[in-house]
C-alpha cells in the first residue's frame, strides 16, 4: 500500500520517537542566521545596509578567500555610541524601528535587528566603532554570539566590522558554498549594485589585497555606471527622466538609465532594480522593462538598465524575507505600468539611430585584432571620447522624427543610401518597408477598417496539426485582419479573402508561415504578431531593385511612422555614418 510505504520512507529520515521540545538558543539562532546569512555576499549586504543607514559616504569592503576567511567593511558613518554597542549584537536589537507602525513605512535599509546577531552566530566578529562626540572608539570581540572582549580603542569616526571564519561552526553551509571565484563574483555584484543605488557614496572593493572596484562617489549615476559597465557603454545609456516634478507623489516615480536598443546583452543579468534605493529581486520588474522594449530587441537579447523606483514606504513591503531582497508592492499593476511607460517614453524619444561604431561594439566579444578599418574606427572612438566636439550633449529629438533624407542610391539591391544633415544613412529597404506596413495594418485593424481583397476562387491551404490548432484558437484575430478562412476537410482550409496587403503574394505560404510565426513561443499579443508577420510577408524583399522614386517614397512613408528606426522584429531600419566619422575615416581630421 502506498501510504504504508510512505510511512516507512518517512521514518528513514527522522526519528519520530524524539519528544517535542524548544530548541536551545544557539541552535535557534543558527537556524535564523541561515535565513539571513546564506553566503558571504549576504554578510556584505547586511553590513553595507548598516553602513548606509549610518549615513556613510565612504565605504571600503575588503574580502579574502571568497569572504569566508575575512570580510571587513569600513565606513565613515555615525558610529554606535559606547553604551549601545553591546546590545547591537542582541537579536532583534535595532535603532531603526520602534513600533509596529514603523514597519508599515520603512525608509531605512535594515530594520529587523537580525543582521549583526545572525552574522555573529555563524562567524567570529570584531567591531570598532566611534560615534561623533566620543573621544575614543569601542572595540568588541564576539565569538559564538557572546562578547569575549570589550575595550576602548582609538579609531576614526565610523564603524569597522570584521567577520572572520564564516560558517566555520556551520559545516553544512560551508559545504554548499561555491568556488572562491563564484563567491567573490556575488560579493562584487552586491557592491557594484549598491554603487548604482548610492552614486553619492564612494565604494571601494578590495579582493584578496587587490582593489577591484572603486566607484566615483560623485552623486552622478552616469559616472557610477561608467565604472560598472564601461565609459563608452555608459555614455550611450539613455536617461529615464522623471516627469516635470508635478506628478502625484503617491505614484511610483521612475528614474534611472536604460540602454538604447543597439546596446544589448545576452542575459537578463544587466538589469538592476532599486526600490527606494534598495536593490531588489522581483519577477515582475524585468518583465515590465522588457515589455517596454517590445519590438525593439531581437529575440534572445536583453537590455542593460538601472531603474530606481521611488514610492511611498507604506506601498512597498520589504519584510517578505529576512534577506530583504524580495519586495511586494501594494499596487503592483501601477508599478508595472509606471516602469513600462517611463522606459518606453525614453526609448521612443531618445533612441538614437545606430551608428557603425555601436554596431561594431554590440557584436559579441570582437576579436582583439580585427581588420584595419575597424581598428582605426576604435582609435577614432577613443579620441572622440576626449574631443568635446564629438560628444554633443544628448539632445532629445522630437518623437519619431527622422532627419530629412535625400536618396543617393541603392547598395546590393538591399540597402538604400541616403544623405541627411549629418552624414550618410544606410536604410534596410525590407526592414523599413516592414515598419511602414506594420503600422498601416495595425492602424487599420484598430480603426476596424482593414482593407480586404476577396478571392475570385478560394485558395485551398494545407495545414499541419499544430497550424490547424492555432487557426482554431485564433481564427477571430485572423478575421480582424481580413482573413476569411473556412474549414475544408481534415487539415485543409479554404481562404476566401486576404488582407489587401497580401495581394500578389503566395497566399498559402503566407498563411502557414504566419501561423508558424505567431505560434512559436508564448506570444503575449497574438494580434500584434499577426501584424508583424503580415508586414514581413508583404514588404519589399532584399535583393529587389528599386527605382529612385520608389526609394524616396519609401523613406517618405517611413518618416510618417511612429517608430521609424526599428522594424517590428526589433532590428534597426537604418544605420548612420556621421560626417565626422567619414572625415576621420578619410584622415581629413
Amino acid at each position, binding site marked *: 500500500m502506498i501510504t504504508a510505504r510512505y510511512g516507512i520512507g518517512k521514518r528513514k529520515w527522522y526519528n519520530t520517537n524524539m519528544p517535542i521540545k524548544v530548541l536551545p538558543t544557539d541552535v535557534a539562532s543558527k537556524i535564523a542566521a541561515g535565513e539571513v546569512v546564506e553566503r558571504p555576499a549576504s554578510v556584505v549586504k547586511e553590513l553595507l545596509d548598516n553602513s548606509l543607514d549610518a549615513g556613510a559616504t565612504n565605504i571600503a569592503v575588503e574580502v579574502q578567500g571568497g569572504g569566508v576567511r575575512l570580510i571587513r567593511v569600513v565606513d565613515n558613518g555615525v558610529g554606535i555610541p559606547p553604551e549601545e554597542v553591546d546590545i547591537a549584537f542582541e537579536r532583534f536589537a535595532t535603532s531603526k524601528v520602534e513600533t509596529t507602525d514603523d514597519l508599515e513605512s520603512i525608509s531605512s535599509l535594515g530594520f529587523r535587528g537580525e543582521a549583526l546577531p545572525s552574522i555573529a552566530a555563524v562567524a567570529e566578529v570584531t567591531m570598532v566603532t566611534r560615534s561623533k562626540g566620543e573621544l575614543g572608539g569601542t572595540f568588541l570581540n564576539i565569538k559564538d554570539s557572546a562578547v569575549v572582549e570589550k575595550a576602548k580603542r582609538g579609531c576614526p569616526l565610523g564603524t569597522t566590522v570584521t567577520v572572520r571564519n564564516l560558517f566555520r561552526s556551520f559545516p553544512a553551509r560551508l559545504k554548499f558554498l561555491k568556488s572562491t571565484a563564484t563567491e567573490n563574483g556575488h560579493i562584487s555584484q552586491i557592491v557594484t549594485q549598491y554603487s548604482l543605488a548610492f552614486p553619492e557614496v564612494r565604494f571601494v572593493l578590495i579582493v584578496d589585497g587587490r582593489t577591484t572596484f572603486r566607484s566615483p562617489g560623485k552623486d552622478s549615476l552616469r559616472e557610477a555606471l561608467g565604472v560598472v559597465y564601461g565609459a563608452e557603454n555608459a555614455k550611450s545609456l539613455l536617461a529615464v527622466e522623471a516627469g516635470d516634478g508635478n506628478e502625484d507623489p503617491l505614484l511610483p516615480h521612475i528614474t534611472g538609465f536604460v540602454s538604447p536598443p543597439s546596446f544589448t546583452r545576452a542575459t537578463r543579468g544587466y538589469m538592476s532594480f532599486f526600490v527606494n534605493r534598495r536593490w531588489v529581486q522581483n519577477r515582475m520588474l524585468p518583465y515590465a522593462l522588457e515589455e517596454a522594449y517590445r519590438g525593439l530587441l531581437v529575440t534572445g537579447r536583453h537590455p542593460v538598465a538601472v531603474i530606481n523606483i521611488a514610492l511611498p514606504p507604506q506601498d512597498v513591503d520589504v519584510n517578505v524575507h529576512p534577506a530583504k531582497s524580495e519586495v511586494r508592492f501594494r499596487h503592483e499593476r501601477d508599478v508595472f505600468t509606471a516602469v513600462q511607460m517611463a522606459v518606453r517614453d525614453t526609448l521612443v524619444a531618445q533612441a538614437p539611430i545606430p551608428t557603425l561604431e555601436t554596431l561594431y561594439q554590440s557584436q559579441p566579444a570582437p576579436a582583439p585584432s580585427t581588420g584595419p578599418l575597424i581598428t582605426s574606427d576604435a582609435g577614432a572612438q577613443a579620441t572622440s571620447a576626449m574631443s568635446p566636439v564629438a560628444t554633443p550633449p544628448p539632445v532629445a529629438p522630437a518623437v519619431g522624427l527622422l532627419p530629412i533624407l535625400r536618396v543617393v542610391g541603392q547598395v546590393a539591391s538591399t540597402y538604400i543610401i541616403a544623405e541627411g544633415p549629418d552624414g550618410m544613412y544606410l536604410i534596410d529597404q525590407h526592414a523599413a518597408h516592414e515598419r511602414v506596413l506594420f503600422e498601416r495594418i495595425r492602424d487599420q485593424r484598430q480603426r476596424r477598417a482593414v*482593407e480586404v*481583397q476577396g*478571392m*475570385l476562387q478560394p485558395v485551398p491551404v494545407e495545414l499541419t496539426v499544430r497550424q490547424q490548432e492555432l487557426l482554431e484558437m485564433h481564427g477571430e484575430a485572423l478575421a480582424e485582419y481580413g482573413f476569411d478562412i473556412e474549414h475544408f476537410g481534415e487539415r485543409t482550409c479554404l481562404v476566401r479573402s486576404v488582407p*489587401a496587403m497580401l495581394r500578389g*503574394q503566395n497566399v498559402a*505560404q503566407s498563411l502557414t508561415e504566419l501561423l508558424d510565426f505567431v505560434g512559436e513561443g508564448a506570444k503575449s499579443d497574438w494580434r500584434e504578431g499577426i501584424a508583424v508577420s503580415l508586414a514581413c510577408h508583404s514588404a519589399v524583399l532584399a535583393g529587389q531593385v528599386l527605382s529612385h522614386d520608389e526609394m524616396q517614397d519609401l523613406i517618405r512613408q517611413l518618416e510618417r511612422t511612429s517608430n521609424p528606426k526599428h522594424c517590428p522584429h526589433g532590428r534597426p531600419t537604418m544605420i548612420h555614418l556621421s560626417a565626422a566619422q567619414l572625415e576621420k575615416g578619410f584622415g581629413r581630421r
Partner: protein
Amino acid sequence: MKVSCSQEDLSKGLAVVGRAVATRAVLPITNNVLLATEGSQLKLAATNLEIATSCWIAANVEKEGTLTVPARLLTDFVNSLPSGQIEMTLPARSKSLELKCARYDARISGLDAADFPAIPTIEDGIKVTVKPDALRLAINQVVFAAASEESRPVLTGVYTDFDGDQLTFAAADGFRLAVHTMSLDAAIKEKMAVIIPARSLNELGRLLGDQEEPLEVTVNSQRSQVLFKMSGVEMVSQLIQGTFPNYDQLIPQSYSTRAVIKLSDFLVATRSASIFARDGSGIVRLQIMPKDGSGKIDISARAEEIGDNLGEIDATVEGEEAKIAFNSKYLLDVLQVITEKEVALETTSSSSPGLIRPVGNDKYLHVVMPMFVQW
C-alpha cells in the same frame, strides 16, 4: 564559315532573338546566340529553355558553317557599326568569329554549336492559322490577368482552348479572370486545350508587332510544345502541364445592377481616383446610382490623413443602386485593353465578383473580385 549580310538585317535579327537569350543562365551557352548558314540565309537562334526564337536573314553565303557567340557582345558590337555589309568568317578549326565591316574589325570567341541546346522542331500536330492583329489583341486582353507569383504554376499560364472554329484564351490569378474568344477561318476537327506560359505569349505579342501575314500555330502531338511560325521568325514555347481550373463557374450568370459607361470617362475617373488610392491598398470605390432610366457613378478614393477625391461620370444604369470597391490597378488593367467605346459593369453585391465587358462584343469578358471595405 564565310558569310556576309547587311548591318541593318543582322541588327534587326539579333533584336528579334535577343529576348529569348537567357539572362541568368544555369547553362552558360544559353547566353549565346547561334549563327548558322541555311541555304542563302543566315539563321540566328536563341533559347532560355522555356522559349526558343529563330530568325532568318538574307545573306551571301560563301562557305557554310555554324557557331555560337555571346549574344550581348555581338548585338552591342553590331549595333555600333555603320550601316553596310558585315562579313563574318570562321576559319577552319577555329572558334573565333572574325567580323569585318567597313574599316572595323573584331574577333569574338565562341562556343561549339554542337553544344547548343537543340531548337525544337515541330512538324506534326494540330495546326491553326490566325491573323496577327487578332492574336495580338487576344494576348493584350488576357495575359495581364495571369498570376506572376508561382505557387500555382498553371495560373502563370494562359489557358488556350481550340474548339471547332473557336480559339479561347483565359487567364486568372485568383483575384480576376480574363477570357477572350476569337474565330478561326478554318475549323479544326479535334478539340484540344493547352496552357501557354504568359511570358511566352508576352514575347509573342512583341514579335507580332511587325507581322502582317497570318501565322501558323502548331501544338505538337505530345502537347508539350507550341510553335508560332511567322514570316522569317519562329518561336517555340514549352507548355505548362496541369489542369487549369474550370473558370466557367467563376463567371457570374446574373446581375442586380448593370451600368453602361463610356470607356474614356470610366478610365479618366479611375485614373484620378487611383492617385489618391496609391498610398493605401489602391482602393477605388464605385457608387452606382440609377436615375430614371439613366444614372451616374461616383468614383472615389481616400487616403488616411492625406486626402480624398470624387469623380462623377454618367452611366446608363439598370437595376438597383450598388456600391462596390475595386483595386485601382485591376480596374485600370482591364479598362486599358478594351478597344470598344462603351463598357458594361455588372454587379450583384459589394462582396461578389464584378463583370466588365465591352458593349456590343461578346468575345471578351473580365471578372474581378472586389475589395471589402467600410462604406
